[in-house]
C-alpha cells in the first residue's frame, strides 16, 4: 500500500515535470512521430501497391513471358499448349496501326492494336472492362479502348473510331473502356516509356476482324502463363524452338515487360525508402531523448537525493526517469502509427488515381498489422535505449552527494585554442560560444549528427528535384530541339523533306529514319530502334557522356549510355546490328546521354542501307514557326502516310506531369527533413539555454544587453549548424547515390545531378531552421526573472 502510495506521488511528479517542459517533450516526440509515420506510410504504401499489382496480374492472368514472331498460323497455339510447363497460351495480333479519332477535330495516332478472342476472354493477358462492355455481336465491328487513352481524348462507349491499314479504312464502334495489366503504366516500349496519349494509345480488336483489317489471318505474338514449379528458362527455350519456323523477333519476360518494369522500379524505391529514412529519424529521436533526459536528471540531482533519502528505492527512481523516455516513445509511436496509416491510404489513393490500377487492394492483413506493430516497436525502442543511461545514472546517485551543491561546471581551454593562440584573444562574444560548444562535447556531437541527418534528407530530396530539372532540360531543350515530329506508318521518299520544308509553317526540316534493330555484343543482345540522322542535324542534339555535343559519323555507331552495361561494350568494340533485312557490324565510336530509353544512332545513309532502301525516311523533324505550332498537326495529316504527329510541347507536358507527381513526393520528404532538423535543434538549443540560465542572468546583471546574449546564442548555434553541414552533405550525397543506383536502367538514365546552388540553398535552409528554432529559447532567456535566477544555487 505504501509502495503504491509512493508510486502515485511519483506519477504526479512525472506528469507535472512533463507539463513543465511540454514543448521540449513534444519536439522529441515529433521526431519519433515523423520516423514512425514515414515507416508506416512507405511500408503500407508499398504493400498496398504490391498487392494491387499482384492481384491485378493474377486476376487478369498477366503473361509470364511473351514471344514475338514475324507471322504464325492460328493453329500454332495448340502445339504450344502441349509443351510441358505451359499453363496457358494466347496467340494474338499486336501491331501499330493508324487510328483516326473523329469528332470535333480529326486526330491521327499510331495506336497499338491488339487482338482478343471475339466471343470469349483470352486465356492470358485479359482486360478489365471499366465502362461499357466486352465485344458485342451483331453491331458491326467493335473495339475496346485502354482507359488512360480514352480519358485523355474523352472517348466513350458508342463513339466511332477508324483504323487504317494500307490506305484501307475500317470503322469501329467503341464497345468498352478497359484497363490492361500490360498497360497500367502506358509505355510504348522500353525505349519509349513516357509517351503522350497524343501519339500513342492502345486499342483491342476482336480476333475475327483481323483478316479483314490485315487482309489475312494474322498472329505475331504469343503470351504464356507458366505452370507453378516449372523452370522458366527451360520452358522459354522450348517455346523458342517450337516457334523457330515463324522467326522469333523478341522474347520479353514479365520482369522486362515495360509497364511492369517501370512499376517494379518505382515499387522497389518505395521499399528501400521504407527502410532507410525512418532509421535516420529514429536515431535522431534517440539522441534527442538522451539529451533531454540527461538534462532533467542533472537538474533534479537534489530532488533525486531527497527521494532516495526519504525511502524511494533505486528501482523506483530508475522507473520514474525511464518513464519520461517511455512516454515520449509511446506518444510519438502511437501518433506516428496513426499518421502513417492515414498517409499510406493517401499515398495509395494518389497512385491509384494516377496510374488507373485495375484492381486496388487496400486491406489490413496480418503483414500490415505486424508492420504497424513493428512501427510502434521501432518508435518506442530507441527512446527506451536512449533513456536507460540517464535513468540508471539517476538511480545510482548517492543521496548525500546528490543533495550537495555541485562545483561549478568545469571550464577548460579548447585544444583549438592551444593550437591557435589567436583564438584566445577573441572577444567574449566569440569565446563564450566556442567554449560552450566544447563544454558538453557529447551534446554538441549529437546536435551535429541531428543537423547532419536533417541536411542529408533535405539534400536527397533536393538532389532528386535537381536531377529531374536537369533531365527535363537535357531532353527538351538540348536533345529534342524539334517542335514537331511526323512519323510515317510506311517508309516515305526522302524528297518529302524538301516538300515540307517549302511549307509556310516550317523553318527547318530534317529527315529521320528509325529502324527496329537487334544489337548484339558477345552474349548480350538488346532490341531497340536505330535512328539515322543527318550529320549536320540541328534539331536533334547528341551529347557525349562528358557533355560535349557530338554528331553521327559515317565510320561507326553511337550508343545510349545505358547500353554500355546492358551490352557490356565499350568504345572501339564492334557491335552486330541486325535489322529485318540486313545484318551488319559497326564499331562503337561513342556513347551519348539519353535520359529516356536507349537507342543507337547512325547517319541517315547508314540507316538507309540497313533498311535496304535508297532515300527512304520514316519521319520528319520540324522546326515550326511559333505562330503555326497549333495548326501544324492538322497540316501534317495532309500527307497521306502520316501516322502520328508528336509535338515536343505536349511530350514535355506529359513528362512534366509525371515528374511533377514524383517531385511533389520529394517536396514532402524535404519537409520531413526540415521538420526533423527543426525539432532536434529546438531541443538542444532550448536545453542549452535553460541549463545556462544562471550564467546568462549573471551576464545580464553585469550589464550585458539582450542583443549581446542573443548574439552569443546565435553564434554558438550557427557554428554547430556549420559543423553539421559537411557531414550532412556527404551523407546526403551518399544516400542519393544509393537511391539513384536503382533508376539507372536502359529505360531511364537518371543521372544524379546536384546544382551548386542547391548546396548553398540547403545550407541556407539549415541556418534558417537554426535561427527559427532558437527563438523560443532566446525569448525565454530575455524574460528571465534576474533577481531570482542569479540567487539560485548552481544546478
Amino acid at each position, binding site marked *: 500500500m505504501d509502495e503504491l502510495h509512493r508510486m502515485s506521488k511519483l506519477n504526479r511528479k512525472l506528469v507535472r515535470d512533463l507539463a513543465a517542459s511540454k514543448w521540449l517533450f513534444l519536439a522529441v516526440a515529433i521526431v519519433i512521430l515523423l520516423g514512425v509515420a514515414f515507416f508506416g506510410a512507405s511500408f503500407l504504401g508499398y504493400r498496398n501497391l504490391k498487392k494491387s499489382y499482384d492481384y491485378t496480374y493474377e486476376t487478369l492472368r498477366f503473361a509470364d513471358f511473351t514471344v514475338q514472331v514475324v507471322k504464325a498460323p492460328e493453329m500454332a497455339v495448340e502445339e504450344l499448349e502441349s509443351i510441358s510447363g505451359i499453363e496457358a497460351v494466347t496467340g494474338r495480333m499486336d501491331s501499330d496501326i493508324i487510328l483516326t479519332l473523329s469528332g470535333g477535330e480529326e486526330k491521327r495516332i499510331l495506336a497499338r492494336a491488339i487482338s482478343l478472342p471475339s466471343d470469349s476472354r483470352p486465356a492470358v493477358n485479359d482486360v478489365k472492362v471499366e465502362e461499357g462492355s466486352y465485344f458485342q455481336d451483331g453491331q458491326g465491328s467493335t473495339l475496346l479502348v485502354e482507359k488512360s487513352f480514352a480519358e485523355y481524348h474523352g472517348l466513350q462507349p458508342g463513339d466511332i473510331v477508324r483504323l487504317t491499314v494500307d490506305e484501307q479504312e475500317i470503322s469501329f464502334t467503341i464497345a468498352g473502356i478497359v484497363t490492361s495489366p500490360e498497360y497500367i503504366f502506358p509505355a510504348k516500349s522500353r525505349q519509349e516509356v513516357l509517351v503522350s496519349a497524343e501519339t500513342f494509345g492502345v486499342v483491342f480488336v476482336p480476333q475475327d476482324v483481323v483478316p479483314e483489317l490485315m487482309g489475312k489471318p494474322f498472329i505475331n505474338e504469343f503470351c504464356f502463363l507458366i505452370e507453378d514449379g516449372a523452370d522458366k528458362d527451360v520452358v522459354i527455350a522450348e517455346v523458342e524452338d517450337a516457334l523457330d519456323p515463324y522467326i522469333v523477333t523478341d522474347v520479353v519476360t514479365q520482369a522486362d515487360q515495360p509497364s511492369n518494369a517501370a512499376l517494379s522500379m518505382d515499387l522497389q524505391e518505395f521499399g528501400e525508402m521504407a527502410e532507410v529514412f525512418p532509421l535516420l529519424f529514429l536515431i535522431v529521436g534517440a539522441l534527442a531523448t538522451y539529451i533531454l533526459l540527461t538534462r532533467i536528471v542533472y537538474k533534479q540531482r537534489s530532488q533525486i537525493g531527497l527521494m532516495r533519502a526519504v525511502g524511494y528505492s533505486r528501482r523506483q527512481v530508475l522507473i520514474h526517469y525511464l518513464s519520461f523516455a517511455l512516454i515520449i516513445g509511446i506518444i510519438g509511436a502511437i501518433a506516428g502509427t496513426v499518421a502513417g496509416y492515414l498517409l499510406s491510404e493517401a499515398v495509395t489513393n494518389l497512385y491509384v488515381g494516377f496510374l488507373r490500377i485495375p484492381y486496388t487492394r487496400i486491406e489490413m492483413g496480418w503483414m500490415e498489422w505486424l508492420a504497424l506493430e513493428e512501427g510502434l516497436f521501432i518508435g518506442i525502442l530507441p527512446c527506451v535505449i536512449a533513456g536507460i543511461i540517464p535513468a540508471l545514472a539517476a538511480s545510482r546517485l548517492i543521496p548525500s552527494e546528490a543533495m550537495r551543491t555541485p562545483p561549478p561546471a568545469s571550464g577548460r*581551454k579548447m585544444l583549438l585554442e592551444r593550437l591557435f593562440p589567436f583564438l584566445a584573444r577573441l572577444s567574449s562574444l566569440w569565446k563564450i560560444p566556442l567554449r560552450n560548444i566544447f563544454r558538453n562535447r557529447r551534446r554538441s556531437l549529437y546536435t551535429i549528427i541531428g543537423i547532419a541527418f536533417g541536411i542529408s534528407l533535405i539534400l536527397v530530396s533536393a538532389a532528386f528535384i535537381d536531377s529531374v530539372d536537369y533531365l527535363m532540360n537535357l531532353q527538351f531543350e538540348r536533345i529534342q530541339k524539334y517542335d514537331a515530329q511526323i512519323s510515317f506508318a510506311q517508309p516515305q521518299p526522302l524528297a518529302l523533306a524538301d516538300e515540307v520544308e517549302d511549307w509556310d509553317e516550317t523553318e527547318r526540316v530534317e529527315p529521320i529514319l528509325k529502324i527496329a534493330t537487334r544489337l548484339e555484343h558477345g552474349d548480350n543482345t538488346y532490341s531497340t530502334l536505330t535512328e539515322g540522322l543527318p550529320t549536320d542535324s540541328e534539331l536533334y542534339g547528341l551529347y557525349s557522356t562528358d557533355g560535349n555535343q557530338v554528331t553521327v559519323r559515317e565510320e561507326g555507331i553511337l550508343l545510349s549510355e545505358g547500353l554500355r552495361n546492358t551490352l557490356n561494350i565499350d568504345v572501339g568494340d564492334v557491335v552486330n546490328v541486325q535489322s529485318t533485312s540486313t545484318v551488319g557490324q559497326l564499331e562503337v565510336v561513342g556513347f551519348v546521354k539519353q535520359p529516356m530509353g536507349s537507342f543507337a544512332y547512325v547517319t541517315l545513309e547508314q540507316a538507309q542501307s540497313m533498311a535496304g532502301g535508297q532515300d527512304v525516311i520514316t519521319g520528319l523533324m520540324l522546326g515550326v514557326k511559333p505562330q503555326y505550332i497549333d495548326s501544324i498537326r492538322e497540316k501534317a495529316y495532309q500527307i497521306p502516310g502520316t501516322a502520328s504527329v508528336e509535338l515536343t510541347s505536349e511530350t514535355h507536358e506529359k513528362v512534366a506531369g509525371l515528374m511533377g507527381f514524383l517531385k511533389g513526393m520529394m517536396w514532402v520528404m524535404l519537409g520531413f527533413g526540415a521538420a526533423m532538423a527543426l525539432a532536434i535543434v529546438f531541443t538542444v538549443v532550448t536545453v542549452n539555454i535553460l541549463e545556462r540560465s544562471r550564467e546568462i542572468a549573471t551576464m545580464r546583471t553585469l550589464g550585458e544587453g539582450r542583443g549581446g546574449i542573443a548574439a552569443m546564442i546565435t553564434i554558438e548555434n550557427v557554428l554547430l549548424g556549420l559543423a553539421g553541414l559537411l557531414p550532412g552533405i556527404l551523407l546526403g550525397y551518399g544516400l542519393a547515390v544509393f537511391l539513384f543506383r536503382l533508376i539507372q536502367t536502359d529505360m531511364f538514365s537518371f543521372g544524379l545531378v546536384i546544382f551548386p546552388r542547391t548546396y548553398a540553398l540547403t545550407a541556407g535552409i539549415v541556418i534558417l531552421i537554426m535561427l527559427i528554432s532558437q527563438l523560443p529559447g532566446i525569448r525565454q532567456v530575455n524574460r528571465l526573472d534576474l533577481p531570482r535566477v542569479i540567487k539560485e544555487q548552481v544546478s
Partner: protein
Amino acid sequence: MTLDVTRGEFIVILGPSGSGKTTLLNLVGGLDSPTSGKIIVGGRMITALDEKGLTYYRRNRIGFVFQFFNLIPTLTARENVEFAAALVNNPIDPVKMLKVVGLKRRTNHFPSELSGGEQQRVAIARALVKDPPILLCDEPTGELDFETGKRILAVMRRINEVRHKTVLLVTHNTAIGDIADRVIRLRSGEIVEDRRNPSPIDPQELRW
C-alpha cells in the same frame, strides 16, 4: 521607507529572512522595479528607466557581488573580469584588478579550479573593473568559511576606503555590522534601525 545614502559610505543592511534586504538591493541595482515610489541614484531617477536604460545603468553604475559568486564557468578568472570590462568604455586593467584582490597568480585558472574565497575575489574584481561608483553585495560571505569571509570583507572595506566606492552589503550576520560606517536594520520591509558607527572595526578583528 526613505533612505538617503551618501557617496562613499560603507553600509551594512541587516535583517531576518523576508525582511526585504535583497529586494532593496535589487531595486537599487536596477534588477527590479518598485510598484510605487522613486529611486534616485546620482541625480537620475532610475525608476523611470526602461529595460534598455536599466541595462546601461547596471553596466555603468553598478557592481554586483553575489552569494554564489556566479562566475561564467567557461571563462578563466581573467576572462571573467575581461567580460565585464568589455562592457564599458574606460575600464580598469583587468590584470591590475585581479592584483588588487590578491589573485595575480591565479589569472588563468577556471572557476572550477579556484576555491570559494578565490572565486568570490574574482567576482569582486569583476564588479570593480567597470569602475562603478556603487558596489552591491548580497551575502558575499554566505558561502565562505569564517577566515575566508573576513578576508573578503577586508578587501571590500579597503576598496571602499581607497577607491571611494559606495558599498551596500546585505547580510543576516549581525556581527558584520561592526565594520560598517552605517548599519540599517530591516523588518518586514521597514527600517527599524539606522545608526552611524563612529568607529568601525577592522574586519580582521571580527568574531562570529
